[in-house]
């Protein structure tokens, strides 16, 4: 068996600007491809990405040499496997389950969404990306995690600085200096809030982890909260902006969604169409085979969920935003043990609360010029602006 073909033409800049035409070509021609610029083996069909995520022993999340470690000042659960990962994840899960989200926290999310949507000025053109999607995602997350004392600006800044540090594959000192400062600020806040969350348990992630019968070490409790900050703002923010774009550029579908209150479907289609987390890496632990090619131990494969979600074998017109699909078995939240822990919160807050609220308040909301909306990102992707006229 041969190694997968090697590509030295695809650049990271191309992938950041618009990866979708490239992925489409790869699905048809080279679904297993070693991409020199990314130093990864790209897997672009739904079957291959799922196969990898469902076999965590063979395709490990564990990467002891990731820049994530200095960026988070911890070896976090994102980069662990098996029992170790399970224990740290389960410590936080009681705060993130569907029941908890729907029953206990629903009213708070509703209140926060009303407050933030209520602040938007009627009759004006507003960048919803900066004025709603980011701040509201930050506020909801701060509450879920049990650190509502952090401001929206702090939450968003910390998140971005953690992400920038974690993506610092060139190991330059500046991004780590910036993430170090964010870590100092977060550590100081966590230390300050600790006694309070123990004395008055509130069901938040921090409180649940601190008051558990057999708690995980404090260093990992803090690491878990940081992972949630790094991985819990961009995604709902970008999902919301993407779905709004999808609905506002497809008025017929929007009308149908409103008539049927199919906001959940609009949400699922949005995260399928442009998955906020587009790609993930896994380390190969044994020589193996994927799609007819030899995959050697030590190789790093990259599952491209963004591409799997448009796979022609599962979706007709997968490049388009089409809410009313028969089936939508997307992989936007991943599969396997690392399945997105925030999936239920995202579905609830973005899909069931924010979207209907926003269209109820501004029924004639429109996107004056869709060509003004800029999309960016290879690892994480979404619009980076969303100028909408609110009426």
């Amino acid at each position, binding site marked *: 068996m041969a190694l997968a073909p090697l590509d030295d033409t695809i650049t990271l800049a191309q992938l950041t600007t618009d990866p979708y035409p490239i992925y489409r070509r790869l699905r048809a021609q080279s679904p297993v491809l070693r991409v020199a610029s990314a130093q990864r083996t790209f897997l672009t069909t739904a079957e291959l990405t799922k196969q990898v995520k469902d076999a*965590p022993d063979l395709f490990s999340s564990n990467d002891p040499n990731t820049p994530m470690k200095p960026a988070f000042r911890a070896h976090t659960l994102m980069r662990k496997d098996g029992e170790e990962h399970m224990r740290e*994840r*389960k410590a936080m*899960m009681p705060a993130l389950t*569907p029941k908890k989200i*729907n029953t206990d926290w629903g009213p708070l999310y509703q209140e926060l969404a009303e407050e933030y949507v209520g602040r938007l000025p009627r009759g004006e053109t507003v960048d919803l990306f900066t004025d709603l999607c980011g701040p509201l995602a930050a506020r909801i997350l701060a509450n879920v995690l049990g650190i509502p004392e952090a401001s929206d600006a702090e939450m968003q800044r910390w998140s971005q600085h953690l992400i920038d540090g974690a993506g610092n594959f060139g190991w330059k000192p500046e991004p780590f200096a910036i993430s170090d400062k964010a870590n100092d600020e977060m550590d100081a806040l966590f230390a300050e809030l600790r006694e309070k969350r123990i004395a008055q348990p509130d069901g938040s992630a921090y409180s649940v982890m601190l008051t558990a019968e057999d708690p995980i070490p404090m260093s990992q409790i803090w690491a878990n909260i940081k992972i949630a900050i790094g991985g819990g703002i961009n995604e709902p923010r970008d999902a919301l902006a993407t779905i709004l774009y999808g609905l506002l550029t497809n008025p017929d579908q929007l009308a149908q969604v409103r008539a049927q209150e199919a906001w959940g479907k609009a949400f699922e289609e949005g995260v399928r169409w442009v998955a906020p987390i587009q790609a993930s890496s896994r380390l190969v632990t044994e020589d193996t085979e994927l799609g007819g090619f030899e995959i050697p131990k030590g190789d790093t494969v990259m599952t491209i969920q963004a591409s799997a979600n448009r796979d022609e074998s599962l979706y007709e017109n997968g490049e388009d935003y089409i809410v009313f699909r028969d089936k939508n078995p997307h992989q936007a939240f991943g599969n396997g*043990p690392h*399945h997105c822990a925030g*999936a239920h919160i995202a579905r609830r807050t973005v899909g069931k609360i924010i979207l209907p609220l926003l269209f109820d308040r501004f029924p004639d909301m429109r996107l004056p010029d869709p060509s003004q909306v800029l999309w960016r990102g290879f690892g994480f992707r979404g619009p980076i602006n969303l100028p909408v006229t609110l009426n």
Partner: protein
Amino acid sequence: MVKVTYIAHDGSQTDIDADEGDTVMHAAVSQDVDGIVGECGGAMMCATCHCYVDAAWADRVGTRDRSEEDMLDGAASEVTERSRLSCQIKLTSDLDGLVVHLPEEQF
């Protein structure tokens, strides 16, 4: 082959033939049965493959362990004594003809 019947919340029924050794979740997902999502692929991380084992089959299906209890506790729909995560029910020849009922929602 093991026959499994899934009865949706609205009463509609789907019968499938599954492989022995497969799980009730995976058999449903691979044969497009609505009402079981199983998003995490059976890692007990998502609580979206919740089902109610039909009373007639309760004894044969076995019991849920602590991890399953913990995850089920957070399921979207009501959890009863017959609730299981269908990813944790492995199909054996003893379960030929198994009937499970599906909850109103999985998330």
